[in-house]
């Protein structure tokens, strides 16, 4: 793939300290209030503050998607860990979550106070219908990339049926289907991944 060292290290800013990590991610979170968190974090971390090269950032996205945990949160962990290991990850994560989490908790406290009011409940009945539509779209969003892989579709269907109609719990389903799928998808020849 790409060279492990940044293409032009001279253009990168000096590595951020913990405080800078915290405030940088706070800036990302605040900028992304309308959505597009990933784009904002690229703009701020790569273009504006020049903490890492674009290649490093894209590698981070790959790692963040691959490993368990919310993608955006994993991305903050990656950025923090790149410079200061676990402590850096905690600093970046706190910066990213502080304001949105506090805000959400405020919404939550208000919700539990007023949700029983009939007017609020009527309003929420509509909002919940829209939110269900959003949840429904998640699977369709990634369906396209599996159309040509019959085994993948079969596997997905089996997981779906087990969870939805046989009331299996997620943890055993993943623990059984995961290793089976890994055996099937294990790279057979020693070919290196295409660049």
């Amino acid at each position, binding site marked *: 793939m790409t060279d492990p060292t940044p293409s032009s290290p001279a253009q990168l800013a000096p590595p951020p300290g913990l405080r800078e990590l915290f405030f940088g991610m706070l800036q990302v979170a605040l900028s*992304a*209030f*309308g959505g597009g*968190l990933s784009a904002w974090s690229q703009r701020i971390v790569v273009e504006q503050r020049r903490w890492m090269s674009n290649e490093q950032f894209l590698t981070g996205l790959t*790692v963040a998607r*691959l*490993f*368990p*945990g*919310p*993608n955006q*949160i*994993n991305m903050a*962990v990656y950025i923090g*860990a*790149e410079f200061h290991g676990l402590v850096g990850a905690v600093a970046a*994560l706190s910066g990213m*979550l502080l304001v*949105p*989490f506090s805000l*959400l*908790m405020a*919404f*939550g*406290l208000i*919700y*539990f106070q007023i*949700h029983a009011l009939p*007017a609020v409940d*009527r*309003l*929420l*009945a*509509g*909002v*919940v*219908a*829209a*939110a*269900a*539509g*959003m*949840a*429904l*779209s*998640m*699977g369709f969003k*990634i369906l396209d990339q*599996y159309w040509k892989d019959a085994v*993948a579709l079969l*596997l*997905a269907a089996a*997981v779906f049926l087990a*969870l*939805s109609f046989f009331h299996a719990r*997620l*943890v055993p389903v993943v623990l059984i*289907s995961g290793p089976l*799928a*890994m055996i099937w998808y294990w790279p057979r020849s020693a070919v290196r991944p295409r660049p």
Partner: protein
Amino acid sequence: MTGSPLLMVACRPESLSDLGRLVQVIGQFLGLSLFSLGGGNTLLAEYHHLAVEQYCWLTARQFADLYALAEAAPGPSSMIVGLLGLGAAWREGPGWALLSAVAAELAILLPSTLLMVVACLSWKRLETSPARMAFERAMGPITLGILFAVGLKILRTADTDPAGVVVSILVCVLMLRTRISPLWFMAAAGMLGGLGWINR
């Protein structure tokens, strides 16, 4: 969802001390953290099971409301775990509720964060390992299956009348075909609800 007669067994919360419930919340989310594949939304049906069916922290309706709230609020929607923690300890007062919320969020983030740090530090070796490649390709289809199950679960939990289901399907199509911010859909559907055109 389509008015199926749900056999509602009254969910009875266990009688636990304040601290006992806090430990219960933390333990459950710690255990689920490493199973949040594909960005975290894969755990929503498990959250529903824990909060509504197993521990009775919330009613199904409250769960649907909190999901919508987490989606509408700015920031990662996986922060719904904080709201579940809030609901779990709501009866014990706002102070305990907030403590429980923070504890739940930390618990769901801690294991995956630790793993992520290890992954970042050893990525150069992992990147070319066959196990990593097999894992990446294997988790895709499993995530796909889980996300469809989650979508269906949330639709059932929303439990609206047919008009509401039509709105859900319409929003689903618009999410896939357009780049309109979902906040508009929620606002419009909220108005329909306020006017009494969508009920549950």
